[in-house]
Each structure stands twice: as structure tokens, then as C-alpha cells.
């Protein structure tokens, strides 16, 4: 079976993102988001490994009428895995989490990740109290995955098992304050940002 292409999967999910706010984890999720859906409503992340889900949770609490989608890798998710229990306890109806699981630390040299062997992140989510999860392995399921992430009442978590990156990284701005200003202006309006 051909392995899922991570950038194509993300492009397909975000094709009809509507007014969704997207928080990508540092590394390839950040680059892929910029490549497939460059919008002011993207909160690009360059540091703080483990804090992508918390960032998405804070945003979901602050913007309860907007869908908030966290897109992150398996390594980043594992570092902040306890945050899934906080998400479950807060139960934001507008928060979705996509773990793009390539079972490795690709950014640092493709070292084997914990999800390659013994760890099932969707099962951890269930055990943390996130009752709706989905694991996707092939291209036929991506349409359903997009619906699950953008329309299902949250909190939800999906794991997409993907192959190594085939596309060159493209980098969003590294202007931290600029990312915040742009995002807040898009979400809150220029006068409140």
C-alpha cells in the first residue's frame, strides 16, 4: 500500500477550511501548512515543542465560535501528551487535533519515534478522555478525515499515518511578533489587535 503523502493530505483537509483557525506544530507541520494554505489565520509555531495542543486549546477557549485545528507531528504530540487530558477536561466543542504521524523525528535526521513501535496516540487520546478519535492509513479515508476534523463536534483527535516528506520545506515568516499581530488582526479586527 502506498503511504500517505503528508502535504497532500493536509492540502485536501484544508481545501474547504472555511474560517477555521489553524495552529501548526514546529517543524514540518508548520512548513506544510504554509505550503498548502497560507492564510493570516495560521498561528505559525517555531518553538515550544509540546505546546501546540495547549496553544490550540487556549485559542479554542477564546474563540468558541470558530473551528480551531491543531496540526502537529507525533514527536511534538508525545512531548505534550499530558495536554490531551486537559483538552478532554475542558471539552471545547470547536477543537480538532490532527497528528501527522510519520513515526520519526524527520526534522532532526529521521530518528525513530516512539509511535513507530509501541505507542498508539489515538489510544492515548481515548484514555485521556477524548472520546472521538480516528486513525487513517490510506487515501480513500481522507475525505472522511477532513469532515471529521472540520465538522464533527469536538474535541476530536485524528492520527494520519504518513510516509516521509517528499516535498521541499517552505518557510513561513520567522517574525514572532508579526505572526501574532497578523493573526490577531485577522481574527479580532485591526482595531483590537
Amino acid at each position, binding site marked *: 500500500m502506498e503511504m500517505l503523502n503528508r502535504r497532500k493530505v493536509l492540502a485536501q483537509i484544508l481545501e474547504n477550511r472555511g474560517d477555521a*483557525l489553524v*495552529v501548526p506544530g514546529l517543524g514540518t507541520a508548520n512548513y506544510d501548512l504554509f505550503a498548502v494554505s497560507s492564510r493570516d489565520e495560521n*498561528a505559525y*509555531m*517555531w*518553538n*515550544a*515543542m*509540546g*505546546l*501546540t*495542543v*495547549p*496553544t*490550540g*486549546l*487556549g*485559542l*479554542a*477557549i*477564546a*474563540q468558541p465560535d470558530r473551528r480551531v485545528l491543531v496540526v502537529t507531528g507525533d514527536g511534538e504530540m508525545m512531548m*505534550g501528551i*499530558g*495536554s490531551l*487530558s*486537559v483538552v478532554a*477536561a*475542558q471539552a471545547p466543542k470547536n477543537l480538532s487535533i490532527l497528528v501527522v504521524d510519520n513515526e520519526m523525528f524527520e526534522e532532526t535526521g529521521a530518528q525513530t519515534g516512539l509511535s513507530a513501535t509501541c505507542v498508539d496516540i489515538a489510544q492515548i487520546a481515548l484514555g485521556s478522555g477524548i472520546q472521538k478519535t480516528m486513525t487513517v492509513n490510506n487515501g480513500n479515508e481522507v475525505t472522511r478525515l477532513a469532515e471529521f476534523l472540520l465538522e464533527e463536534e469536538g474535541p476530536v483527535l485524528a492520527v494520519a499515518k504518513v510516509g516521509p516528506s517528499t516535498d521541499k520545506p517552505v518557510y513561513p515568516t520567522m517574525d*514572532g*511578533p508579526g*505572526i*501574532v499581530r497578523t*493573526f*490577531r488582526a485577522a*481574527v*479580532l479586527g485591526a482595531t*483590537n489587535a
Partner: protein
Amino acid sequence: MSDSDDGWSGEVFGLIKEAGISLVNTVPDAGLTRLLNMCSKDPDVRVVTLSTEEEGVGIGYGAWLGGTRSLLCLQSSGTGNIINGLALPAFAESPCLMLVTMRGQEGEGNPAQFPMGRAVTSVFEAMGVTCLEATDNKEVTSYFRQAVDMAFGEGKVVAVLIAQQVIGSKTFGK
């Protein structure tokens, strides 16, 4: 522990309301009990219990992106858990307001608390965090007011540390 005021919790709660802070993220501490109880009882303040303090930095950053002001309440030992996380608001020049109840200071009954307790200020300052250490009730209030202005007015990462002498010591029967 009773909810009767300890000389600072009621004042700080008033400042939280005045500043429009509607989200309080915390790994609790005994010294924070009164304040957290007041926050929990207020319908306009959401208290989020964390699994580790670092999450509160991320939640606070995300909340700021969405237009909500937050406060992170933690015990001094938790400051060690959030160092790399502080790079997020620091890089983005976004507000991060913290209220830290100290352990490992004068009167501490558990020597295991000393290493982290002693390191808080130097570790925080190394990360560029402004530390305001209050040694009496009046200072807690005035420093908290100052910290609110620095965080939300200037986009600073700032911590009010409440010295152990203000909150009382856990003596472990000694």
C-alpha cells in the same frame, strides 16, 4: 482551608477582574487555594487545571491570539517545568503573566524544596522574565498591578513571586 481572606488573595482577585482576565491556568498550590476558590466561584473566570505548568504558557499564548487575557498560577517548583515554553511568548513578544507561590525559602520544612526554590529568580531572569518578589501582603497587590500593566501593556513575560514568609511555611511537623 477556609476562604476567609489572607490579606492578598481578595486584592489580587479584584485586580484580575479589573484587568479583564477571564482565564486562570494552574497547577494548584496550598498558598493559592483562596485565590483559586474565588476564581472558581466567578462565572466570568474559567479555571483550567493543567497536567504540567508548561501547558499554561501555551494556553495563555493561544488565548492571547484569540483576544483573551489569562493568568498562570503555580508553585515555585513548577517554574522549572516551563523554561523552554517561555520561549513562546518571549519570541512573540506576547503577554505572559504569572503568579508564583514560593517554596524552599526561609522556614521551609522540606529540604528537597531548596534547590528549585533557590533557583527560581536566576532561572527566570536568564529567560528574560521580569521577577517581582513580594515579601508582604501590600507588595503582592502593588507588584501584581504593575505586572498586569507590563504583561498586557508591553507584551512582557512577568512573574510575581510571593515569598514563603507571606503565605506561611509547610513545616512537616518540625
